[in-house]
């Protein structure tokens, strides 16, 4: 990206503020639907960071995969387990939270001093920029070909595993009995109605039983 330095610094600051604020909201807010939408804000700001880091393709992949797939999946999971329950308050919960906060702040201090004090081997070469997607494709189909194919196998296994894990173990009996009855007395376009009909309704309305 050919942006002026001031534009880069200002957009970095805005994206960093948005990212940290949204991440704190994800962790700290009590309503989990707000957390899910703030997670989308985190993903979008990270995608902007990738644009600042001269990586167009990965920014687009981040938007598509995270915002478009993972976040929607999380929203569907929230809707499926939508039970507004008040958790039983634990005894000494504040000790756990305080200790965790202490450890996290300490970890951040450690990482921060390491990052600041290490002399990074910054390369002076011109970044790939617009040719990054070509380089990425060359990597995928030459020296990273085996991991690339294994990733597709992994995705297939994850898909099958997710279906098997989330599937209901049993079918409700009323639906199976409704299906077992031969719908000989109904019009050909009606049986879809029969499957969706609950048990308590009469099975064949008198109007179309001839």
């Amino acid at each position, binding site marked *: 990206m050919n942006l002026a330095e001031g534009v880069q610094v200002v957009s970095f600051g805005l994206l960093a503020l948005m990212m940290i604020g949204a991440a704190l909201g994800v*962790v700290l807010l009590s309503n989990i639907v707000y957390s899910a939408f703030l997670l989308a804000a985190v993903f979008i700001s990270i995608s902007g960071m990738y644009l600042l880091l001269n990586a167009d393709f990965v920014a687009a992949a981040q938007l598509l995969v995270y915002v478009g797939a993972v976040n929607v999946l999380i929203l569907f999971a929230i809707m499926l387990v939508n*039970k507004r329950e008040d*958790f039983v308050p634990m005894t000494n919960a504040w000790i756990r939270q305080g200790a965790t906060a202490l450890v*996290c702040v300490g970890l951040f201090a450690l990482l921060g001093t390491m990052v600041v004090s290490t002399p990074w081997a910054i390369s002076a070469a011109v970044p790939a920029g617009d040719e990054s997607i070509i380089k990425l494709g060359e990597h995928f189909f030459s020296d990273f070909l085996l991991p690339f194919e294994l990733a597709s196998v*992994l995705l297939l296994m994850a898909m099958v595993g997710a279906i098997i894990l989330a599937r209901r173990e049993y079918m409700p009996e009323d639906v199976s009995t409704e299906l077992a009855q031969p719908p000989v007395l109904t019009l050909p376009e009606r049986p879809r109605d029969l499957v969706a009909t609950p048990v308590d309704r009469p099975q064949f309305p008198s109007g179309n039983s001839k």
Partner: protein
Amino acid sequence: MLQVQYFLLLAAALFCIGIFGLITSRNAVRVLMSIELLLNAVNLNLMAFSNYVDPQNIKGQVFTVFVITVAAAEAAVGLAIVLAIYRNRDTVDMEQFNLLKW
């Protein structure tokens, strides 16, 4: 000019927030969201190194794409596990998932 340290500090902050949420949150879906935060922090680190240390031969971006792939698979399987646990235990409280405790 933007330095590599800025991105690394930002990724470290995001990682620490993710760990805090991973340990302290009680909703199982929020734990999965914290794991996504952790993976994104790692991705940001990889991209920063890819741009500043290895700008011509961008292998960090390749690793980032692989991490994104694995994260998508992890999210799908993790949410399926959460659904299965919710169906069995009728709660998403992490403190109630102590079936394997002696």
